[in-house]
């Protein structure tokens, strides 16, 4: 699990300033903001636009295009299940169904207690040890029922 700072405009401005000198900085800044705060606060969008001399619409457009960037904080733990073909071939459908049933939520949602966010991911490049998953940045392959249950228990702690 990752620990994030809570949003603070001054800290946000620092992060933007630190990264705005690079070529094509928008994604670099959005990544840096999300790494610090766990999501990209809406208040940061006009600040990024201002720093890069872009319109708010352009930054908003970039922000919303990419699956990675979050509008609000995720659950305490994020469990990503690979739903692409290689994992489908190796029993990934059953793994996803089991995780959804155990957590009582569908992929793409967060549990009511905000402990676990369950997300689909399209390929972790662990296709020879499928099905695979990522829990808070840690990779796990060869998922079977027991390993899924253990992962979920860990995420729920």
């Amino acid at each position, binding site marked *: 699990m990752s620990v994030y700072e809570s949003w603070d405009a001054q800290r946000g401005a620092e992060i933007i300033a630190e990264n705005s000198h690079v070529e094509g900085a928008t994604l670099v800044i959005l990544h840096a903001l999300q790494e610090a705060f766990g999501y990209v606060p809406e208040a940061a969008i006009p600040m990024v636009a201002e720093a890069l001399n872009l319109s708010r619409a*352009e930054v908003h457009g970039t922000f919303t*295009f990419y699956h*990675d960037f979050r509008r609000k904080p995720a659950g305490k733990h994020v469990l990503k299940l690979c739903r692409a073909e290689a994992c489908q071939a190796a029993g990934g459908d059953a793994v996803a169904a089991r995780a959804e049933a155990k957590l009582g939520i569908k992929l793409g949602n967060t549990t009511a207690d905000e402990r676990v966010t369950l997300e689909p*991911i*399209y390929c972790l490049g*662990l*296709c020879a040890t*499928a099905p695979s998953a990522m829990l808070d940045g840690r990779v796990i392959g060869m998922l079977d029922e027991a390993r899924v249950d253990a992962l979920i228990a860990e995420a729920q702690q």
Partner: protein
Amino acid sequence: MSSLRIFIPRDAGAIAVGADETVAALEQAAAKRNATIEIVRTGSRGLYWLEPMVEVATPKGRVAFGPVKEADAASVLDAILKDGPHALRQGLTEEIPWLKRQTRLTFARCGIIDPRSIDDYRAHDGYKGLERALTLTSDAILADVTTSGLRGRGGAGFPTGIKWKTVAQTSAGQKYIVCNADEGDSGTFADRMIMEGDPFVVIEGMTIAGIAVGATKGYVYIRSEYPHAIEAMNAAIAAGRRAGYLGSGVCGSKHAFDLEVRVGAGAYVCGEETSLLESLEGRRGIVRAKPPLPAHKGLFGKPTVINNVLSFAAIPFILAGGAKAYADYGMGRSRGTMPIQLAGNVKYGGLFETAFGITLGELIDNVGGGTRTGRPVRAVQVGGPLGAYFPRALFDTPFDYEAFAARDGLIGHAGVVVFDDTVDMAKQARFAMEFCAIESCGKCTPCRIGSIRGVETIDRIRAGERVEQNLAVVEDLCNTMKFGSLCALGGFTPYPVMSALTHFREDFGPAPTSLQAAE
């Protein structure tokens, strides 16, 4: 007494099945036995069913054990210390048939060297290509790349020599080298493996490209799903700068070249080169219309060489005097070797680098050993989410760009995903459309809308609703997408859909003839 050298991968695929835990257990076991061991974290050899694979240096070569789980570590260490037998002992690594029958040119060092050590890279023929390139003219470097017959390994198979030549001949104050490491195709992991296991070979290939075309700056665009590769490339770039291989004077020459890693943000379409360039510039990953080609107007409007990781990784061997040798491998217009990736429901999955020309059947049955579940192979998808599904009847197809195209398929980035007989091909066809709908950049209508209509129509077919008429709609949609889309996402989604329909018609509900027969 010198310590025992033990090699365990830090490759994400090995870590995913417990390599880190095995390392900890080995260290603990060694401490208990007062044995001095030195653990070197390498890349993976690519024999994933044996991961975590533990190798030990012996006078005869490295001896492999695998798969060594945490609980096996102590007994494996005992076997290593006594040079005794063990159930997981695989013998000399280089003699393992699966590895021995490969032709490893690009992956020659992967799994052998310490990817953090530039000295280890140099000790294994690293930077020989660059050293030679620095003595050559731009034209001579381009001639070598052309002679090798290398075609872009990202999927499109465009001749690399021609691409580089175009950039070299375009004059501009600034040119760029961009490495496409947005390896989003399911079933592919070769880019990830080489970045994690031999990152300097990618850096060397990009540096040679920079010198050949007169570019001083390069970017490696890596997908965010690959944190280990990002870390490995960043560490290698820093090491390259410290050792003078990157920076204002590459190896003391007049050539300047430096690299930067940029991280994607979870958009599959950014593997398409113009979309990737847009993303690098900080915008939505919307596909650009071509022309202008990136070679003329690429990153920030400047002439840009954009190639896949494996294309760059093939270059050092070629420039180290291997252009002709490289071209001697392969068949037809597909020259050299291809790092093929066996994935999905396969018994022996992993990285199999071999000359073009091996048949699909050899790959699946011989090399892959059939399915992991032990059930019959029913379909294989070659080339990622945009690749066709082939039935056993097409297993005689040789691995070759043209041979696959002739059978309405593609080799793409050479990922091969195996499915057993429990697969529902109508479901797979639906997924292909669904994936296209999720990942479409939205610029062109056939892809953006066609994929959504495709999902809806296949749902109707699966519900048994007017099957024949709806199949005709799917076929029509596929034609529109194939010929009307701006890039390969919309343009190639018809491959998995139509191949599923053509070769596995029975999964789409009863055919009219059998309906009539039943009446």
